[in-house]
């Protein structure tokens, strides 16, 4: 090896090193609030700027928001970001006609009308980045609380960082049940987790038995074998027992498999009344196609959301997606039973040109819950906010979610009033079919055979 090379290596490396410092010294903000570098429509900057300008008032309260703004699930992340900015706008400005927490007054009354500023960070679905971005938000941006982080695996590490630094972490979307079993002091979860959803699914099935008199007793859980699928099927099997259903088999398959022949063959062999799939979109698509190819139609396909409810699922599979049932956290047609949903949805539509859906509605709600707690705390002291969150009790009629309200379990900090709905696909769109009092369409049962489509 040449000595010269060492020398040049050295020079190069040192210059890299200095380069590293210099280049990021200046725009530290860049990673902080991607709005600056994001596409204009996202318009984080345009929203926040005026509030800062028109508010020489007492304080600006910084809240950190952690989402996947790039990469495979960026679309969801960006949408959530918009919903959070939207919620911040509702807090900071006065919307008297909305029956939402803090909507009527501008800012946080108990803190002298202080405005909240949301600082976004991108975690790219990487647990390591999630944790370090959380630390940066807390140590460098001095945020008083954090909302995030969509993916359960990232929430796991990010909430850990918040726990260590003693800052409240309000989790809007991660549904892995284990997250609230860690005995954390600073971690709060507004969304129901897969356990609650799984129970919901069996409540629904039981209700179908009792009110509609359908004859179902056996189920098969089929799930992709990463974190999400494994969690979901585990809880489903527990509840199946409790609600008197027999789980004939639990089929785990590798995520993004090229072929599902054997999986579906097993289903056919087991021949359950209800199939409970937990899948990401790619597998969901392949599963339905394989069902069709093999002409497989159980009494019902009842999915654990996600792959089956993701935006591009129904457009992709087209008519083949019809009559699939899925648990859902939110549906725009809730407006028919809950006018508030309609009002908020319209405002959101005209601002961002898209309807509210599961991810956005939950992000929106999480920020309101947090802001409401900060206001009640009347201070930005983390412990005070934590106490306020523990005392949170928001009634159902002040939420756009189909929940019975928001109240956190004193130990696990899971929202105990959260619940979901069951939707069914009709010509390329999902409609609420259960609980019956929120239903906008009459449920189609059993799942029609492929031959008579």
């Amino acid at each position, binding site marked *: 090896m040449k000595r010269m090379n060492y020398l040049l290596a*050295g020079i190069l490396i040192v210059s890299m090193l200095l380069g590293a410092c210099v280049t990021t010294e200046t725009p530290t903000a860049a990673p902080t609030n991607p709005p600056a570098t994001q596409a204009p429509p*996202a318009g984080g900057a345009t929203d926040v700027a005026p509030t800062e300008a028109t508010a020489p008032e007492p304080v600006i309260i910084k809240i950190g928001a952690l989402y996947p*703004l*790039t990469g495979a699930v960026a679309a969801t992340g960006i949408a959530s970001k918009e919903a959070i900015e939207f919620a911040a706008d509702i807090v900071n400005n006065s919307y008297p006609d909305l029956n939402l927490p803090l909507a009527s007054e501008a800012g946080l009354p108990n803190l002298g009308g202080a405005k909240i500023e949301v600082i976004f960070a991108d975690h790219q679905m990487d647990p*390591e980045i999630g944790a370090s971005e959380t*630390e940066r938000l807390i140590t460098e941006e001095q945020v008083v609380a954090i909302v995030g982080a969509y993916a359960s695996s990232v929430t796991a590490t990010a909430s850990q960082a918040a726990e260590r630094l003693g800052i409240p972490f309000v989790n809007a979307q991660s549904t892995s049940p284990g997250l609230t079993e860690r005995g954390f002091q600073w971690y709060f979860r507004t969304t129901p987790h897969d356990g609650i959803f799984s129970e919901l699914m069996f409540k629904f099935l039981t209700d179908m038995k009792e009110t509609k008199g359908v004859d179902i007793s056996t189920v098969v859980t089929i799930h992709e074998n990463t*974190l999400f699928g*494994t969690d979901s099927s585990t809880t489903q099997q527990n509840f199946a027992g409790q609600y008197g259903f027999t789980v004939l088999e639990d089929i785990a398959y590798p995520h993004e498999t090229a072929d599902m022949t054997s999986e579906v063959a097993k289903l056919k062999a087991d021949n359950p009344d209800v199939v409970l799939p937990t899948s990401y979109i790619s597998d969901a698509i392949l599963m339905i196609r394989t069902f069709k190819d093999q002409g497989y139609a159980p009494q019902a396909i009842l999915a654990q959301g996600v792959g089956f409810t993701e935006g591009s699922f129904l457009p992709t599979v087209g008519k083949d997606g019809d009559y699939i049932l899925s648990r859902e956290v939110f549906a725009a047609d809730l407006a028919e039973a809950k006018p508030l949903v309609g009002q908020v949805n319209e405002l959101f539509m005209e601002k961002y040109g898209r309807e509210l859906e599961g991810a956005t509605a939950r992000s929106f709600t999480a920020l309101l819950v947090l802001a409401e707690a900060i206001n009640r705390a009347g201070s930005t002291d983390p412990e005070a906010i934590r106490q306020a969150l523990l005392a949170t009790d928001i009634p159902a009629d002040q939420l756009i979610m189909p929940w019975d309200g928001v109240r956190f379990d004193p130990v696990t900090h899971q929202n105990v009033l959260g619940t979901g709905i069951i939707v069914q696909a009709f010509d390329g769109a999902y409609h609420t079919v259960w609980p019956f009092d929120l239903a906008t369409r009459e449920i189609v049962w059993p799942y029609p055979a492929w031959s008579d489509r």
Partner: protein
Amino acid sequence: MTRRRQYLTPRRMFLVLFTAALIAFPLVVKQGSLHRLMILVFLYALLGEAWNILGGFTGQVSLGHAVYFGVGAYTSTLLLVKLGITPWVGMLAGGLVATILSQIIGYPCFRLRGHYFVIATIVLAELVQILFINWKWAGGAIGISLPLLPESWLNFEFNSSKLPYYYISLSLLATVVGATYLIVKSKAGFYFRAIKEDSDAARSLGINITGYKMLAMAISAFFTGVGGVFYAQFVLYVSPDNVLQFSLSTLAMLIPVLGGIGLLWGPVLGAFILIPMSEFTRIYLSGAGSAIDLVVYGLLIVLVAVFEPRGLLALPDRLRRGGRAR
């Protein structure tokens, strides 16, 4: 030999300067995010350096190093979670377990040549990942979140500042680079390079090539495993798709190849370029999931491969014509 002596001083100078710069860095630059960036650079430089021992010096291209990283991480984590053993012991254990596994993997793989070897390493890595996904006791697909312990050197957990992690990773890297330097200058190092150059000739000179390939694999796996343990303590979360992912295997190869394969400082240079590059392209170019950052990233890789396949350390050498790198 004489040439060596006359070049010794500038090299020493640079080494001192470079080390000093790295030690001083976090004291000068106070940004946690940059500390983290440097920690990642050190960690991945370590991975590259470890890979380089097997892939660079001995010429056995492995695309399965994620296994050793992951097994290292899991070993220390399981020891901590199940038996409450401090990660410092876990670090040694992680390295050892990785080494043992490497011998089990190496034995069959070294009967294969060229691309058969590469594919075999990929396949075995995939296999191990799937096994961990389905291994409930080790957390299965959900993985393991490490318990939050009071911040201390014994617990190998620090939250008020990243400095301890910074200096631990830096000294780990320094140790590995130093060890590699000694190895390369030793009998084993000469044998590694001889095997890479021409295995028949090597055998004719009395070298037991399988034995020395296994040795290279063992050293490489040990360092990689140690890196995995550090990662587990740094992120406090291990799961099949963060510590066993294929991209770790590729990264371990890309870094030395970028910097200069089979050169002591290649991986260090590679990491100092690749990691910040991907971070900055992400921060400045990534808009709304357009993936333009990774487009640039991929493009840069192709360009380097096309214009200087021997790695960036070969550039100065190309300028001095004669192409005498490596």
